[in-house]
């Protein structure tokens, strides 16, 4: 990978409050609200936007094809260039990176990436069915297509390989729901204990209701710009220092049992007996991190990153992702949370916003929401946007956002850096 393009900056963002169902607004109106927030915050007008990327996952939820152009139309962005990007749960992260590519390639000087999902038009169990159609419909879906079931088997294997415990999983839920108490955009802020998590209804063992994120209606918008344009727009742009994208087999069953692709802070002897990735780890997450770290010149992620917003659709996937990102070694994810390292005041705050578990997961908006929250953190403008500064990290210089699809089929990692 060469990454020889122009520098790309994020200059503004907007998010709607995520909720289970907001039937009074459709997806176009929701994106419009987030878009206007972002335009106003940066003092931009429609004329300043060169083109866009539309981010949404499922056509099924609304039985509407080409929802992207309906948003483009509603926002008044026609006849400017636009395209839709889709890749399951990682749709937002992939779209964010597509926006980066539009700028890096020199095609556009400003690009708006807008993401949305309207999941409330079907009931929760039908929604789970739609989401499960993002597993192989010949071989996996008919066996009992249910994503929480797939993740439960991965979590179970992680516990078997490394001794991870259900209490360690629960601590992720406690942390993320707790962080969200100070995030006005979050869908389910909650003060929880480990036993609250374990005593909530079992969904697919070992995962309980509070180990799993919810479905949501929501939208999020990120505006990206070239270097010259970014500094015209704002004194506080955030540099997108590097991006990485990984993939893995559609069927969980097809994952190989090979060697760990090592990060600079690891050595082969760390993993002598580990068969990788099997179903305990996400090779796509590791590949994405490796590419992004190389592009950003990061060799020691734990010490060179100040915050992480990662795709915690399940508590178990947050723990697995600590390891994929090299914040700790494979097998140490459980003790990483025990030691409080990802806490708000810990060594490296992970999901200070509350993550998917507490903010909600309107799929196409999710990866962009992470970008917006990381952007505000790095701009140190959390107080302005949240109305309180409880979640503002003291002096963050570098953040990582991580978006994740399927059983780990597409994963994106993007590194964002404060310029002052």
């Amino acid at each position: 990978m060469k990454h020889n393009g122009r520098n790309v900056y994020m200059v503004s963002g907007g998010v709607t409050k995520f909720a289970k169902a907001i039937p009074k607004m459709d997806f176009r109106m929701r994106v419009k609200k987030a878009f206007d927030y972002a335009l106003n915050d940066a003092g931009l007008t429609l004329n300043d936007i060169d083109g866009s990327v539309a981010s949404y996952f499922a056509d099924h939820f609304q039985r509407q094809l080409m929802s992207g152009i309906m948003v483009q139309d509603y926002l008044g962005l026609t006849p400017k260039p636009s395209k839709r990007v889709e890749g399951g749960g990682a749709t937002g992260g992939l779209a964010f990176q597509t926006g980066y590519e539009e700028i890096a390639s020199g095609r556009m000087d400003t690009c708006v990436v807008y993401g949305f999902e309207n999941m409330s038009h079907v009931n929760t169990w039908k929604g789970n069915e739609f989401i499960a159609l993002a597993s192989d419909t010949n071989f996996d879906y008919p066996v009992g297509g249910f994503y929480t079931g797939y993740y439960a088997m991965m979590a179970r294997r992680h516990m078997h390989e490394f001794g991870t415990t259900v209490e360690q999983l629960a601590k992720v839920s406690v942390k993320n729901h707790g962080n969200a108490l100070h995030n006005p955009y979050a869908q389910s802020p909650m003060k929880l204990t480990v036993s609250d998590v374990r005593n909530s209804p079992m969904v697919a063992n070992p995962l309980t209701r509070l180990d799993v994120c919810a479905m949501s209606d929501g939208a999020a918008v990120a505006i990206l710009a070239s270097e010259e344009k970014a500094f015209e727009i704002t004194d506080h742009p955030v540099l997108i220092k590097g991006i990485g994208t990984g993939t893995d087999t559609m069927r969980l069953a097809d994952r190989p049992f090979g060697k760990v692709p090592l990060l600079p802070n690891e050595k082969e002897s760390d993993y002598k007996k580990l068969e990788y990735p099997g179903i305990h780890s996400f090779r796509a997450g590791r590949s994405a991190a490796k590419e992004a770290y190389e592009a950003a010149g990061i060799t020691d992620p734990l010490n060179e990153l100040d915050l992480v917003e990662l795709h915690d659709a399940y508590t178990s996937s947050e723990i697995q992702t600590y390891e994929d990102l090299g914040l700790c070694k494979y097998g140490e994810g459980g003790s990483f949370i025990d030691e409080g390292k990802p806490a708000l005041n810990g060594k490296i705050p992970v999901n200070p916003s509350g993550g998917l578990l507490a903010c909600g997961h309107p799929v196409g908006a999710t990866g962009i929401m992470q970008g917006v929250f990381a952007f505000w953190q790095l701009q140190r403008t959390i107080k302005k946007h949240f109305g309180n500064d409880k979640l503002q990290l003291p002096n963050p210089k570098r953040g990582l956002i991580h978006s994740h699809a399927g059983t780990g089929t597409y994963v994106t990692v993007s590194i964002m850096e404060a310029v002052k």
Partner: protein
Amino acid sequence: MTLNPNAKMEETQNGTEVYGFDPLIVKSHYEIDYIHSYAQDSEFFVALGHKKIMGSKCKKCGYVYGTPRGHCMMCGAETEWHQLPNEGKVHSYTTCYFGSEEFLPETPFHLIMVEFEGVNSLFMARLIGADAEDIYIGMPVKAKFRRNQRFLPTDVYFVPSEEALKAVDNSKNGKK
């Protein structure tokens, strides 16, 4: 030629179910039958009727898949059909108490990933004949097949093997 200013659309008795008026929320129904081809994977579904689980083996590099795939992900070469053993072990498992709408009536049900001797990757299936708390990683399981095929991957499912039962008896008698 017809030009009729009094033309009128026929009125019908088909109303619309309304959930609410502010905003207006109505029921919208949709269903479809697909003419779905299993294409190059067809053999797998047919073979289940002969009590055979067919995986694939790469003709070039010899990698053995616990699933059908026409071409090898390791080297890109064509694969050939390769019969999998009817006995294996639980690589991982869960019990689903909720699920997609289609499978809700079947909850709770067990999902397992099966590992087979001499096969490089896994196979996803249902397990029956065991309580949730009795399933464990490494548990020996054997394949069973539906007599009346539905041409779905659930035409094969797994049950604990006699070996699993013996292991329980031995541990009760204090042997390991």
